[in-house]
């Protein structure tokens, strides 16, 4: 009886240990993905995500054209992204230039388009400006 219990404990114990290790590893991996280690760019129009892309994994440059009340051309290269061209009146989006750091954002208000590199280098929740 005693021996039998011990064997059972061992089985349960090792499964428990394995599961604990797996769950910890899972959380760890999940966190490292979510905390901005990669340069994930998100392009939104009117709160709808048009494209999500890891800029660091981009091999060759890419252009994305966005329609709406106005038109924007977004240029993506390895590690960076920008509004390349637009026909909106103020061109604030184009003037913002390249985004290459986590947490940076460019916006075309007239066309309701935003480009943001997710996460933050400094662990910031937001920036007041």
């Amino acid at each position, binding site marked *: 009886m005693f021996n039998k219990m011990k064997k*059972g404990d061992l*089985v*349960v114990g090792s*499964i*428990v240990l394995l*599961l*604990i290790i797996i*769950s*910890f590893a*899972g*959380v760890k991996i*999940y*966190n490292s993905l979510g905390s901005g280690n990669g340069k994930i760019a998100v392009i*939104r129009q*009117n*709160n709808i995500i048009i494209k999500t892309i890891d800029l660091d994994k981009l091999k060759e440059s890419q252009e994305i054209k966005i329609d709406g009340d106005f038109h924007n051309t977004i240029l993506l290269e390895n590690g960076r992204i920008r509004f390349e061209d637009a026909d909106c*009146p*103020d061109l604030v989006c184009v003037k*913002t*230039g390249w*985004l290459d*750091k986590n*947490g*940076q*954002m*460019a*916006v075309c*208000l007239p066309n*309701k388009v*935003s480009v943001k590199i997710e996460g933050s280098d*400094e*662990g*910031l*929740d*937001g*920036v*007041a*400006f």
Partner: protein
Amino acid sequence: MKNKLTLILLLIFSISLFGCSSQAAPYSPESFYMGTVINQKVYGKNAKKAGDLVIDRMKEIEASMTINTPGGEINPLNDAAGLNPVPVSPSVMFLLNKSKEYGELSQGAFDVTIGPLVKEWGIFTDNPKIPSSDKINELLKLVDYKTLLIDTMNNTAMLPMKGQIVDLGGIAKGYAGNEAIRIYKENEITSGFINLGGNVVVLGTKPDGALWNIGVQNPRDVNGKIIGKLAVKDTAIVSSGDYERFFEKDGVRYHHILDPKTGSPSKSDLIGVTIVVDSTIVTDSSTDGDALSTSVFVLGLDKGRQLVESLKGVNAVFITEDKKVYVTSGLKDKFTFDDESKVYQYVQ
């Protein structure tokens, strides 16, 4: 054997729960109102409902307070300048009163009747221009918040001189921030964040109890580059600076914050100021912060600091033209100087 199987299943179940104990992602919608992009992060079971109600409210505030598109409440008030009083809603009444209060407090550095000059400079248009000094002097006669007549009995307001223009641009976004927090609270949200084009208002702490980390923009670097950060809860953070909106002509920078005394972009010794208002002490933290950031930017470091320090629950980060950073005493333990550009000097 059956017991052991149950035990194992139970353990797997409990561990998988443990594995998922990290916080659920916030509801983070993006919207475009009041001439800016609005980002929210709302946590909790009513997050979606609250976030969407906030977007509806932002749309309402824009519609009622804009002078850039027809309709609303301020356009009729301006159209009736020199003619007759017009009825206004409680929200507009509140902001007109608040604006007069900050006109007094800032000794005219904040003036809600600055409209004629904003229009003449074309500050928020695609074709800004430099008006002649004659034109500026002529329009300055129309700028005086004291002349704005408010009748709280009949809920009406009136501008006595023809050509006068009320512009709530210096306070409406601040008000919108407070309205967002009100809506969060009404929906039992205890952890929320809203950024209205650079005005940040946070409710409570982050869901894990940590303080919110809010960067203070470097006035001379690309967006997202900071000179320091603030660790806060239940706080409104509002910045004003010469970098937010400006145009350059013949090498001179003309920014969007007009000094009501000169009718031209203010020329104080500040290039940026960030007002930090504790919402647990100041009820209308974001509204007050908005009016104050303009006031202090126009007043400059010395007078601005005096004003901030005279108010309970209000603090500020000042950035001067000679690249020095100052904070008021209440921020000593909340502000961390962090200037990657190595251009600024933190004066403690």
